[in-house]
């Protein structure tokens, strides 16, 4: 029925995500970008491999995508993807996983893949928290946010993952929220056609674990809040650290 059914194992739906989980929106965005590229013959879904780690975000491709999926260990999808890509360079390898997976335990593989400019696309389903394990702080949790392991608010600064990837030499890095759906799809499509390492940091609301603790109980609350929090990369360039604090910088990094 849906336009995306051809890419889906429809039998496993509805997805296991909570009602209003942003990861579902991202799932759609990824498939739409693929659909668009396929339509113009720039991509062949059957020659794609989707690699993910452990976490809610890692469930986006596995088992939902009706293609080759490799659901690996927590933190390791990029390392597995490295093996897949090097052994079969003709395959398009896409890593889809959470912020905890890619930036906490998996941070080393991320920076090394970026340094090598490994020709894979990595999509971080970034909900600023550990969703699956019950809402602990992640390295992208905003300062002062409440989580299960920061009962008094997060005192650490979050990563700017796009900046990190660029600093390592990654070819392409961009950030969008799932609500910036059209630029997001466009950006994913661009990332998928890049020759080197391409990275997308996609802010994706976790209503259950992040929202519940931070006064954002529904996806619509995020929708309203995030609009105010975003700042375009171009604008942010000229701004001071202080001004950018707590803001979500969206756009393609250079």
């Amino acid at each position, binding site marked *: 029925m849906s336009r995306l059914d051809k890419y889906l194992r429809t039998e496993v739906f509805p997805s296991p995500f909570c009602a209003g989980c942003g990861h579902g929106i991202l799932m759609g965005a990824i498939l739409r970008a693929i659909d668009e590229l396929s339509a113009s013959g720039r991509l062949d879904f059957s020659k794609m491999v989707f690699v993910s780690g452990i976490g809610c975000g890692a469930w986006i491709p596995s*088992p939902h995508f009706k293609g080759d999926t490799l659901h690996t*260990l927590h933190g*390791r999808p990029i390392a597995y993807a490295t*093996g897949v890509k090097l052994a079969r360079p003709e*395959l398009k390898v896409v890593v889809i996983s959470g912020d905890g997976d890619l930036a906490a335990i998996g941070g080393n593989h991320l920076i*090394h893949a970026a340094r090598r400019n490994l020709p894979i696309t990595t999509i971080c389903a970034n909900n600023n928290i550990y969703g699956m394990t019950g809402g602990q702080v992640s390295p992208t949790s905003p300062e002062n946010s409440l989580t299960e392991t920061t009962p008094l608010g997060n005192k650490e600064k979050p990563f700017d993952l796009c900046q990190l990837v660029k600093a390592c030499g990654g070819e392409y890095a961009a950030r969008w929220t799932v609500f910036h759906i059209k630029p997001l799809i466009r950006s994913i499509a661009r990332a998928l056609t890049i020759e080197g390492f391409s990275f997308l940091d996609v802010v994706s609301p976790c209503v259950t674990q992040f929202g519940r603790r931070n006064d954002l109980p529904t996806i619509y609350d995020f929708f309203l809040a995030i609009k105010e929090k975003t700042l375009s990369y171009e604008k942010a360039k000229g701004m001071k650290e202080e001004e950018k604090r707590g803001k979500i910088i969206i756009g393609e990094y250079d």
Partner: protein
Amino acid sequence: MRTPLSGFSDNCGREMPERIKRSILEPKRYFLSGNIACAEGALAAGCRFYAGYPITPSSEIMEHMAKRLPEVGGVFIQMEDEIGSISACIGASWAGAKAMTATSGPGFSLMLEGIGYALMTETPCVIVDVQRQGPATGQATRPGQGDIMQARWGAHGDYRIIALSPWSVQEMYDLTISAFNLSEKYRVPVILLSDEVVAHLKESILIPEEIKLFDRKKDKGLPPFGNDLVPPMPTFGEEANLLVTGSTHNEWGIRKVQDPDVSEKLVVRLCEKIEKNKKEIVRFETFFTDDCEICLISFGITARSAAYAVSLLRQEGIKAGLFRPITIWPFPEEDLKEITTSAKKILVCEMNRGQIIEEVKKILCNKEVFGLFKTRGEAIYPWEIIEKIK
């Protein structure tokens, strides 16, 4: 494959031949180190992917692969660490390559989670552990045999694994090939448990004209994670819509993490595919065991000292014999029992503080089992064994 030592009866013929292939190296006698022989064995077995991280005393394997793989159209990558290395190997294996990594104790410890994943996803790959003296960083350049039990039990959860113990440069070549064959045949990571002595020892080695190779079944359409004991394993990019996961899964790879039946079925099958094929897998060698009164049990470099000790003891009229497991895991339990019927005493020699002896005690619990252990970062020498016996 190997020239059997005279005086030895061995059961090496149990290999499952499938494909006969000409060697890559010109067939003749060479003088090589164990590590180089291992790398060449891998190439001969069809290994075309190596991901690794340097560590003494295994690094020469990696360095040789770095040089040789591009020559044969393979891929070499030095990863950021050992976790990355085993991960990349598993990824490459699903992409259709025969993949290998080599390391030593510290790196092996780091690889355990990944090895567990390979076990759960039934991914063929070969891991070489060139053992050095531990624990921790220990004596990095000196030999040990302290990772024997780790190879069996090191990853969390339940599984059965295959581990081989080469005792010569020749076997570094031969058993590396066997490791790939077993790995492909049973869809299981296979561990080559070498040690610093065998790795750095240089010896004459015969590269044979032909070797026997086994390649994984790649059939599409059948469930890749059931119902056969060893299901077929299609490759990425070939429209098999593979679902590979380290979570508990059904025969199609669909995650089923709340279903007791699925879990039981999977874990039991993972164990049984090794247990039920044990007879096929197990290999060992015996030396003067027919009438022995004292039977030595040893493996790897230590077994060579033991064999020599036996030959000297025999000269003195002492009825000594040697049982050498070649597959450390699964351990040749039944064979050991059978072969040691005449023996009254059992001496287990190992470069650790007692690991295989635990297994032996269980199997031969009515015999007097004692051990010669050494954790000095030196091989156990023949004269030390002789002294212990006398």
